């Protein structure tokens, strides 16, 4: 008969043996399986249009099945894309392919150079759109650190009835129109809590909105060579504009918005204008919301000197980690994804726009006509929305979005410094502090400019960002 002590001692030994077996077991099994079949693990965001994921997951598996590759797709919320990448880099294990929806440039050191893949696709389909190239290539290190299969335009969304009632039925054209319209919106739609809904909070949409204002007033964080030029009279003008707009047309609500808030506010008819992709509109369609008949779009607004620019709403950036054991399969997968650009655009209900327009060309089109043919196919979809827009050409402006869409980092290339400034909300905070009067425009600018210079200097020391000689 065992004593209690003997029992516990034996039990402890058994647990120890069991734990050792458990930790060794999966390794043995995985190695065994890996020797027989190829595997590809893809980390993908949970798309803002859920229908896309319903297409993507089986498509990826089917692609793998045809080639004897077991494809696993994992989805994370958009906010977890970067933390997950950080964790996988630290652990040097995880997925083979990782999709970023913003800038992947900070991870350049740990990703495979995709120059060869980009080159092959260029030969097949022609050049990618310029903003995709600028978001995935580092001219300083000459590395194609990511590959973009799609980007998303970011138009203005306006409430047709309200804007018609104030005498501007086709919506605003310039930023000044928003300031002029705000008091009128208050008169004709007093029930709307936020007459103009341009976010100034620590979220992804606000980050884009304030950059649009900055660029359209002639300012930018960096110049083409990577010098920090935020501290400029143009930025001050942009800040003063934001202060005016906030005082006449916005409330503190816009300081607390998350990525879904502007959609919710617009869909609940609590605001007359927001900046967003068409995902909010598709939600309104899916749920047959009352706002639907008044849900219309305008292109990017123009600044005082006529500059008309908007940041892409999403820019896909697929990377292949250096620690991946399936790098060749991963590269093939990315080529196949670009090949499927038409399906991708339709599966996302016209949310995704191909980064290689040529990949959407009609079959058999001559090489030099592919981009043109792809653009025509895209325009055809937008001019007669197959997903039930009324009128059918409601989204036609998206087909002409390319000239007014640009990349984070404009007028230069995207880089890790721009990424860190984006992810730590330096620019949104500068605008929010100015708009609310927490700081004067000049003080907010000085604070933000100093922080930007610190961040750029840090990345320059790491040899990943150019410029510096003409920092202001």
């Amino acid at each position, binding site marked *: 008969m065992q004593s209690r002590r003997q029992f516990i001692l034996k039990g402890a030994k058994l647990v120890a043996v069991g734990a050792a077996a458990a930790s060794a077991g999966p390794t043995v099994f995985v190695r065994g399986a890996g020797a027989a079949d190829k595997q590809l693990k893809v980390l993908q965001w949970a798309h803002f249009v859920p229908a896309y994921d319903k297409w993507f997951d089986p498509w990826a598996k089917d692609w793998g099945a045809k080639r004897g590759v077991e494809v696993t797709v994992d989805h994370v919320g958009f906010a977890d894309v970067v933390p997950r990448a950080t964790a996988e880099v630290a652990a040097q294990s995880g997925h083979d392919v990782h999709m970023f929806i913003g800038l992947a440039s900070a991870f350049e050191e740990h990703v495979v150079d995709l120059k060869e893949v980009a080159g092959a696709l260029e030969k097949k389909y022609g050049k990618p759109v310029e903003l995709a190239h600028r978001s995935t290539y580092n001219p300083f290190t000459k590395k194609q650190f990511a590959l973009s299969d799609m980007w998303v335009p970011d138009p203005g969304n306006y409430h047709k009835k309200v804007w018609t009632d104030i005498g501007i039925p086709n919506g605003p054209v310039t930023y000044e129109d928003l300031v002029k319209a705000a008091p009128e919106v208050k008169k004709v739609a007093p029930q709307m809590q936020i007459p103009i809904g341009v976010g100034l909070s620590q*979220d992804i949409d606000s980050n884009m909105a304030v950059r649009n204002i900055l660029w359209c007033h002639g300012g930018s964080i960096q110049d083409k060579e990577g010098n920090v030029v935020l501290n400029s009279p143009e930025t001050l003008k942009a800040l003063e504009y934001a202060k005016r707009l906030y005082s006449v047309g916005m*409330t503190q609500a816009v300081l607390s918005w998350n990525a879904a808030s502007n959609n919710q506010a617009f869909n*609940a008819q609590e605001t007359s204008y927001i900046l967003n992709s068409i995902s909010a509109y598709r939600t309104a369609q899916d749920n047959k919301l009352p706002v639907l008949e008044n849900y219309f779009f305008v292109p990017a607004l123009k600044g005082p000197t006529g500059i008309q620019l908007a940041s892409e709403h999403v820019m896909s950036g697929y990377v292949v980690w250096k620690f991946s054991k399936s790098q060749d399969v991963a590269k093939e997968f990315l080529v196949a994804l670009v090949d499927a650009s038409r399906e991708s655009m339709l599966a996302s209900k016209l949310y995704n726009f191909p980064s290689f327009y040529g990949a959407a060309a009609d079959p058999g089109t001559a090489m030099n006509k592919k981009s043109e043919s792809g653009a025509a196919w895209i325009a055809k979809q937008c001019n007669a929305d197959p997903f039930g827009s009324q009128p059918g050409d409601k989204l036609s402006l998206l087909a002409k979005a390319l000239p007014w869409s640009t990349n984070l980092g404009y007028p230069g290339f995207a880089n890790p410094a721009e990424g860190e400034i984006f992810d730590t909300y330096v620019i949104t905070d500068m605008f929010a502090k100015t708009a609310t009067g927490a700081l004067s425009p000049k003080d907010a600018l000085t604070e933000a400019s100093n922080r930007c210079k610190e961040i750029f200097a840090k990345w320059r020391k790491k040899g990943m960002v150019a410029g510096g000689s003409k920092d202001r």
Partner: protein
Amino acid sequence: MTTTEIALATPSRSRGASLSRRDIRLGEILLAPALAYIFLLVAVPFLLAVFLSLTNSSAGSLQFSFVGLQNFRAVLGSPVFRRALWNTFVFTFVSQFLVMVLGNILARALMKPFRGKLLVRFLILLPWAAPISLATLGWLWIFDSTFSVINWMLKVVGWLGPGQWYYWLGDPVLGMVAIITVHVWRMLPFSTVILLAGLTSIPKEIHEAADIDGAGPLSKTFQITIPMMLPILTVAILFGVVFTFTDMSVVYLLTRGGPYNSTHVLASLAFQDGVLGGDVGRGAAEAIFLVPLLVLMAVVMLRISRRAEVV
């Protein structure tokens, strides 16, 4: 002692020594998982954080160089960091004060017999059991700037007139109020349970003797209840303070540090700068900034607690 007695005592003593050795061995085995857990999941990450705070490490890289105290100097010069430091103290001390006061009231109420006491205890414990992300999502809607239930109710009862609205998460002060409210709601059950245990452990005879001596409620509280509960109170406060000082979940889920980085605490700022922004060195410096203070606080409070036990 006779020869027979010695002969009998010797195997017994050696059996005792053997048992004692086995006890020590068993103790070591039983303690090993806890020590391994603390070493692997607390000590190693902590030492790593200290090391990283002295480097220029970034999220996308495994290479870094030693930069001394540069990260600490940089964060001290940042107004966002100074604000977060201030917020951390406000968040911790205001929420702990409220938790202790409300916990005491609740614990005293729960000591009295009343109908439905079990149900009330269950409801009080619910916030502690609920996953914080799920609970905070509920609070997010309660404090939503456009659809706040509180505001709609205040509007209905006439507290808020036309054009009046509380932007709970869009205002630096209201944002902190919202954060503290959720944190107090979350911590209250634990504190109540601990205080309830402390209150019930005081023998009734002591209170009865004090009643006979003519002591009033205030003198009983300050001369009997608080001194006798001091060890348990100290542990509750120490746990609450350390937990609150190092917590980022409520802030991150509710305001993400906004508006304009005005509601960050050090832990949430460290996450934003270190993980999202990719500046691991800076994030680590922000995260461990208060460690010396926390260690000092823990030592002082544990000493107070031990002294109170001896008394």
